[in-house]
C-alpha cells in the first residue's frame, strides 16, 4: 500500500462529510475511474498533470462507503504538490467496499503535500494499474441510452385497470391438445375466432381421472370485466388484454405499485371471449381465500420492476461497486479479452459421469463452461440439445463444486424445460422457481411435483439400492401407502438450502432489496436463449454472480424492443437519434455481439449434432450453418410419421408447394395471400386423410404475418377445429411464437409474391420456421419470388438462400404445383396438380 500525501481543496458545501477524511490522518482508500481522462503536463507532455473524474472510496463503519469524486493531480501553486480537487462527495449505503475494484492506497490530506515529481510518478503508476480503470468506455453512453429507454417506458405508461364485474367459481378445463380425457362436445370452449381451445369437465369427472390425467387438466376462472368509457369498447379492451397477456394481475386496489410485487396474483391467460358486450377473460390464478379481487390490472409490472432492477445493477456496476460484474461486463461488451483457463478443460474423475452421455460438441461445451473461466458461450443451433448440456453443467456445479446457480431466460417455458431435466433422474436437483404465476416448481407446488416425478419412478430408483433385499421389503411397504400424495419438502427447506434458482430475465417477482437478497450466494448465472435477450436483461443478474454461461443461437430470433418508433414518437422525451441508438443497442443480441470476442478467446463452442430433424429437413436450414450440423436424428429416433399413401408424402420429407396465381395483398402493415391459404388448407385436409395414427402426430402451421393467421382462422374455422381433434396437436402461430417449440409436421407459409420490402429477407425467421419440423416440412410460396430474395448473414455476402433450399427440394424432396386443387401424378419427385 502506498502512502500518498495530498493537498486538499474544498469547494463544495458538504463540509461535514469531508471532515471525516480531512482530519490530518492517513486513511485506506480505493482509487478508481470509470474512464481514463488524462491531462498532460504542458512542460513535458510525457508527464501527467491531472487524472480527471477519479473516485476515492473510503470504507464506512457498519455499511457502505464514502465516495469522493474529483480530479487527482499536481497543484503548481504554493505549497506545490499533489492535490485532490473534490467535486462531489456522497455516501452509498449499498456498496460493499471489499467488492469494489480499485487501487489501494493510504491517503492523508495535508498542508505539506507530496512533491510534484513524486505525485507524477504515482499518477503514472496509477494509469498502468489494471485495477484503476473500469475498462468500459461505452458504459457512459450505454447508461445514457438506458436512461432514455427508462423515460420512454414510463411515459408510454400502458397500464390500464378494468373493474371486475364478477369472477366465476373455478372450473376444470381440458385443453384441446389433451386427447386421452373424454370430454363432452357440448362443453367446448372457443376463442374469439371460433377455434376450439378446450372443454369444460365436471368436478365428478375430474375426480375420476388418474392423477396423471388430472395434471393435464387446468383449473380456470372466468373474469367478467367492465369495459366502460374509460377503456373504450369491448374490442379495444380485448386488444389491450391480449397485448398485456404476460402482465395480468388480479388486485384489490385500483393502483398497484412495486411494494406489492411479492403479493401480486398473476393471471395466466388462457382465453378471451366476448359475451354480448361484456368481455370475459379466462385463466389460471392462485387466488387467496378471503381476499376480494376488484380489479384486473394490465400493469407492466414486469417492465417496471425489470427496469428498476436493471437500473440498480447498472448503478452498482457504474460505481465500480461490484467487482466481478465489472469484469464480466468488460469481457462481454467491453474491450477486455476474455480469460480462458484451457488447462483446466479436461475430463477428470468427477466430470466423467456428467459427460458420459454427451456428444463430442456437448462434451467440449461442458468442459469449457466448467473450466473455471468467468464467461462461456454455447451456441446451440436448433435441436442440438442445449437443455441437455445445461442440465449436465448444473448437475456438476451443484453436486461437485457445491455451488449455486441462477437459471434464467426470457420465457417461462425455456426455464421450465431446463428445470424439467434437472428433476428427471433419481438424483434430481430441486430448484426454487421465482414467479408470480402458478408454477410446478414454486412454493408448495414442489411438494406435489416431487410426488409426480420422483415418487412415480420410485420402483426404478429403488432398483439402484445395493441391498436388494431391503429394497424389496420397502417396495412391498410402499404398495400400502395411503397417505398424502405429496412430499414434505417445502416446509422443511429454507431458501438458502436451494442450489438452483429459476427466474425469467423479466420477472416481476424479484424486485426491491428483499428480492435481491434471494440472489445472495449464487455464483453462477446461466441464461438460456440468450440470443433473444437484450443486453439490459443480461445485466440484470450480473452484479450478483461470479460466472456467466450464455446459451443461445444468434441465427435464431433476435430481441425486439417492446415499443416501435410510432408508439413513442409523440412522447416528451423522444429523440430520434437516441431512439435509433436504443433500437440498435437493444435489438442487437448480446450473444451475437459477444460471439466473435468469445470465439477469438476460445470461449465459444458450437453444438453441432442435430437430434431433431430428419436429414432432408435439416438440410434446408443447415444451409444457414454452412452445413456444420451433423444429422443424428435417424440414429436416435429412426421412426417417422407414416402415411397410408406411400407415394404421396411418405417417401420424401420436404415439399415445396408452388402456389400458382398466388397474390400477396396488404392489410395495414400486415400481408396475406388467399391462394396460399387455400393451398395450406388443402394440404392439411389431405394430411388428415393420409397420416397414420394421427393421435400421436403433432402438426403446426407457421405464418409470417398476423393477417395471414387471421384470414386462415376465419376461413377455415371448422377445418382447424377438426385438425385439433384429429391430431395430437395442431397449432397455428407466428414465427416469433414458435421459437423453442417443435412438431412432427410443419407447414410454413411465405405469403410474399413481391420481392422487395418483406421481412423474409431476415434469414433468422426462415431458419426458425423451418427448424421447427421433426419429420415433414411443407413450404408454401412462389419459387420465383423466393429465389430472388437476397439475405445476408452477419455481414457476409448476400446469398439467395431460398434458391438453394428450393433447388435442394427439387433434388431430394418434392415440388407440388397448386392451382386451386391437388392431383398427384405418378412421378415420385413431381406431383402434378389439376387445373380448374
Amino acid at each position, binding site marked *: 500500500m502506498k502512502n500518498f500525501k495530498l493537498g486538499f481543496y474544498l469547494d463544495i458545501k458538504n463540509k461535514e462529510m469531508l471532515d471525516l477524511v480531512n482530519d490530518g490522518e492517513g486513511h485506506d482508500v480505493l482509487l478508481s475511474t470509470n474512464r481514463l481522462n488524462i491531462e498532460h503536463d504542458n512542460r513535458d507532455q510525457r508527464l501527467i498533470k491531472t487524472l480527471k473524474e477519479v473516485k476515492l472510496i473510503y470504507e464506512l463503519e457498519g455499511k457502505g462507503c464514502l465516495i469522493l469524486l474529483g480530479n487527482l493531480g499536481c497543484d503548481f501553486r504554493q505549497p506545490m504538490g499533489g492535490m485532490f480537487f473534490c467535486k462531489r462527495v456522497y455516501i452509498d449505503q449499498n456498496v460493499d467496499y471489499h467488492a469494489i475494484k480499485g487501487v489501494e492506497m493510504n491517503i492523508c490530506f495535508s498542508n505539506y503535500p507530496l512533491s510534484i515529481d513524486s505525485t507524477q510518478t504515482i499518477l503514472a503508476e496509477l494509469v498502468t494499474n489494471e485495477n484503476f480503470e473500469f475498462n468500459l468506455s461505452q458504459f457512459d453512453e450505454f447508461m445514457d441510452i438506458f436512461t432514455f429507454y427508462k423515460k420512454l417506458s414510463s411515459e408510454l405508461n400502458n397500464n390500464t385497470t378494468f373493474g371486475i364485474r364478477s369472477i366465476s367459481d373455478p372450473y376444470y378445463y381440458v385443453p384441446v391438445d389433451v386427447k386421452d380425457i373424454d370430454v363432452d362436445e357440448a362443453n367446448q370452449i372457443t376463442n374469439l375466432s371460433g377455434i376450439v381451445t378446450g372443454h369444460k369437465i365436471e368436478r365428478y369427472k375430474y375426480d375420476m381421472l388418474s392423477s396423471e390425467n388430472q395434471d393435464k387438466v387446468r383449473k380456470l376462472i372466468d373474469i367478467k370485466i367492465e369495459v366502460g368509457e374509460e377503456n373504450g369498447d369491448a374490442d379495444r379492451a380485448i386488444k389491450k388484454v391480449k397485448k398485456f397477456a404476460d402482465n395480468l394481475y388480479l388486485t384489490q386496489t385500483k393502483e398497484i405499485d412495486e411494494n406489492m410485487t411479492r403479493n401480486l396474483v398473476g393471471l395466466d391467460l388462457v382465453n378471451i371471449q366476448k359475451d354480448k358486450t361484456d368481455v370475459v377473460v379466462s385463466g389460471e390464478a392462485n387466488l387467496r381465500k378471503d381476499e376480494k379481487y376488484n380489479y384486473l390490472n394490465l400493469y407492466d409490472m414486469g417492465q417496471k420492476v425489470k427496469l428498476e432492477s436493471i437500473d440498480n445493477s447498472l448503478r452498482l456496476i457504474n460505481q465500480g461497486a461490484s467487482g466481478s460484474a465489472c469484469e464480466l461486463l468488460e469481457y462481454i461488451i467491453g474491450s477486455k479479452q476474455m480469460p480462458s483457463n484451457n488447462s483446466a478443460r479436461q475430463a477428470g474423475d468427477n466430470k466423467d459421469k456428467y459427460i458420459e452421455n454427451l456428444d463430442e460438441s456437448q462434451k467440449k461445451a461442458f468442459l469449457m463452461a466448467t473450466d473455471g473461466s468467468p464467461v462461456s458461450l454455447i451456441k446451440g443451433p436448433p435441436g442440438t440439445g442445449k437443455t441437455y448440456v445445461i442440465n449436465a453443467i448444473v448437475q456438476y456445479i451443484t*453436486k461437485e463444486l457445491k455451488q449455486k446457480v441462477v437459471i434464467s431466460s426470457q420465457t417461462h417455458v425455456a426455464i421450465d424445460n431446463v428445470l424439467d431435466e434437472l428433476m428427471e*433422474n*433419481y*438424483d*434430481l*436437483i*430441486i430448484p426454487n422457481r421465482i414467479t408470480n404465476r402458478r408454477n410446478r416448481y414454486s412454493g408448495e407446488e414442489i*411438494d406435489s411435483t*416431487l*410426488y409426480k416425478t*420422483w*415418487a412415480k419412478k*420410485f420402483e426404478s*430408483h*429403488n432398483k*439402484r*439400492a*445395493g*441391498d436388494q433385499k*431391503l*429394497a424389496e*421389503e*420397502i417396495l412391498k*411397504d*410402499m404398495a*400400502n*401407502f*395411503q*397417505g*398424502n*400424495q*405429496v*412430499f*414434505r*419438502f417445502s416446509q*422443511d*427447506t429454507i431458501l438458502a438450502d*436451494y*442450489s438452483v434458482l429459476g427466474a425469467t430475465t423479466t420477472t416481476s417477482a424479484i424486485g426491491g432489496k428483499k428480492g435481491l437478497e434471494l440472489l445472495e450466494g449464487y455464483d453462477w448465472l446461466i441464461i438460456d436463449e440468450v440470443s433473444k435477450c437484450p443486453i439490459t436483461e443480461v445485466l440484470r443478474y450480473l452484479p450478483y454472480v461470479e460466472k456467466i454461461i450464455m446459451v443461445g443461437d444468434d441465427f435464431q430470433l433476435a430481441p425486439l424492443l417492446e415499443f416501435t418508433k410510432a408508439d413513442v414518437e409523440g412522447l416528451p422525451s423522444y429523440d430520434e437519434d437516441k431512439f435509433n441508438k436504443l433500437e440498435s443497442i437493444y435489438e442487437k443480441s448480446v450473444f451475437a455481439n459477444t460471439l466473435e470476442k468469445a470465439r477469438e478467446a476460445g470461449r465459444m463452442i458450437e453444438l453441432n449434432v442435430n437430434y431433431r430433424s430428419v436429414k432432408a429437413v435439416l438440410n434446408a436450414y443447415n444451409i444457414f450453418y454452412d452445413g456444420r450440423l451433423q444429422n443424428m436424428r435417424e440414429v436416435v429416433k429412426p421412426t417417422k410419421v407414416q402415411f397410408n399413401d406411400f407415394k404421396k408424402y411418405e417417401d420424401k420429407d420436404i415439399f415445396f408447394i408452388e402456389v400458382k396465381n398466388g397474390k400477396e395483398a396488404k392489410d395495414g402493415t400486415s400481408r396475406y395471400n388467399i391462394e396460399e391459404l387455400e393451398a395450406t388448407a388443402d394440404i392439411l385436409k389431405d394430411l388428415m386423410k393420409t397420416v397414420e395414427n394421427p393421435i400421436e402426430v403433432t402438426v403446426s402451421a407457421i405464418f409470417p404475418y398476423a393477417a395471414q393467421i387471421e384470414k386462415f382462422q376465419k376461413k377455415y374455422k371448422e377445418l382447424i377445429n377438426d385438425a385439433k381433434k384429429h391430431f395430437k396437436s395442431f397449432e397455428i402461430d407466428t414465427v416469433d411464437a414458435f421459437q423453442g417449440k417443435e412438431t412432427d409436421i410443419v407447414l410454413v407459409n411465405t405469403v410474399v409474391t413481391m420481392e422487395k420490402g418483406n421481412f423474409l429477407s431476415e434469414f433468422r425467421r426462415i431458419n426458425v420456421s423451418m427448424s421447427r419440423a421433426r419429420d415433414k416440412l411443407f413450404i408454401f410460396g412462389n419459387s420465383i419470388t423466393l429465389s430472388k430474395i437476397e439475405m445476408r448473414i452477419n455481414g457476409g455476402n448476400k446469398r439467395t438462400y431460398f434458391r438453394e433450399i428450393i433447388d435442394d427440394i427439387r433434388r431430394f424432396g418434392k415440388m407440388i404445383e397448386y392451382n386451386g386443387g391437388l392431383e398427384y401424378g405418378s412421378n415420385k419427385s413431381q406431383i402434378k396438380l389439376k387445373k380448374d
Partner: protein
Amino acid sequence: MVQINLKLSLRKIKNIIEVSYNTFEKATYDQYLMASLALRSKDKLSAYQYIDDITGSGSLNAHFKQLYDKAHKLDENQLKNIMGNSMYPMLKIDKSNSYDYYPELNVSVFNNKLYEGDFGKYEDLIQRLYIQEEVIESELIEKRNNANPEPYSVRFEDDKILVKIAEEWVNLPTEIFQKIFVNDLTSIKKVKSEIHNVADGSGWYALTNAVINNMYSSNNYFYDNGDLCLIRNDDVRKTIISQLAGFYIYKEEIIPYAGNKDLCEKVLNLLLENKSINEFKTRSVITLLTYSDDLIAQSVINYILARKDSKELALMGIKLLVRGIEKNWENDALKSFMTYADSSKYSLIYKANPRLVEDIQMLSMINPDFLTPTHKKKVEEYKQNRQAIIDSIQKMVGEIATSGMREKTKQLKSTDKTRRFHKLIQRYDAHSKIDYNQATLNDLEKYSKEITELYDLMKELQNEIDKEN
C-alpha cells in the same frame, strides 16, 4: 353509585400455555418411505447407504436423511402402525393459548372470559383447552409481568370499589385501590371552584394536574353554582369537581352558545370586562352577538370597531342600525359602517351622525330630506355644476359629429394639428360611451377638457379649410 374511568397500576401477568401432545397426521410419501426404511433396515449405516443409492448426491439425499433420523427415533410398533394406516405420529407443540393473571385481584382472563384464581394452574386446564390428545407436557411461560398504569372502569358503590375486568365487575379492596391508584395532585390548591361531596352516574374521571391546569388556562371563566365555566370559542366548558373515597374526580359539561341568551350576554359582559374580547374569534363574537340583546351587541360593536377593523362586525352593526338602533353609535363604528355599507344605507348612517360625512359624492347619494341646510346647499351646487359640464360636452360632441371634419382632414396636408386631431378623435371614439349619471365630477371635468381641445382644433382646422377655399 358512581362510575369513573381511571388509570390503575394493576399488576398483570401474561402467561403462554405451551402444551406438547402426541397426535397423528396423514403421512407424506417421503415420511412413509423413510418410516419403512427405519423399520426394515438393520442400522443407520445401511439406511444411509440405501438413501445414497436411491438419491445419489441430489437434493433429496439430505432431505431423506433428515426424515430418516426422525423416523429412526420411533419404536417398532409405531413404525408398523405407520405402515398399516399411513398415519404418522407427530409431537405437536401448541403455543396458541395465553391468558392474563391479575395477582392483586387473584383473577385470570382467558378468551375474554373471567376466571377465579390463576387459570394456568387449574387442574382441568387441558380439558378447558379442548385438547383431546395425550398430553406429554404442559408449561406456563411468562411473557409479560408489569404494573404499568392502564385505564380501567371503576365503580364506587356504597363502601365497595369494583373494577371492570373482561366485562365483569371485580371487587377491588380499598387498600389495594389506594396502593395502585397513584395521583400526585399538587395543583389542587389552585382550584377555587366548589368541591362537591356527591357524585353519581358515569362520565367521571380522576382529577389530574393537567386537568386543573387546563381549567385555568385563560382568565376568561366564571363560576356557575360554584363550578368553574371556561369560556371557549364555541361554548362554555363547565368542570364539576367532587371528592370521593379520599380522592378527587371530575366531570365536564359543555354548554353551547347557540340559543342561550343569558349565557351569551354573560360571556360578552365578562369578555368586555376582561378586555379580552379582541382576542376572541370574530365568528364566535358574531354568534354571541346574534343571541344577545341589541344594546349589548351595540356596545360590543362600538368597543371592537374602535380597536380593529372588521367587515363582519360592521355589517352586523348596520343590521342593528336598520333595526332601529340609531343612537349611541361611536364615530369609529359609523366610519366603519360607511366603508362597508352599500349606498342605500348612507342616509341611515348620516342620520346617526351628519358630521361624519363630508364627501360631496356621498352626500349627493343621501336622501336630501335628511341633509343639514349647509350640506343641502353644497349638494345642489354640485348637481348644477355637473349638469352644466354635461350640457357643454354634449353640445361640443354634437358639433364635432356633424362637422364631417374627420373626412375633411384627409384632404389636408398632414400637420401636427391634423395628427393631434386624429389622435384625439380616436380617443374620443374609445371613450364615447361614458355614463354621465355615474361619472364623478372629477371624471366629467377631465373628459370635458379633452373634448374642448378637440372642439378647438376642429374650429381651427375649419378656419384653415375656409381660408384655402
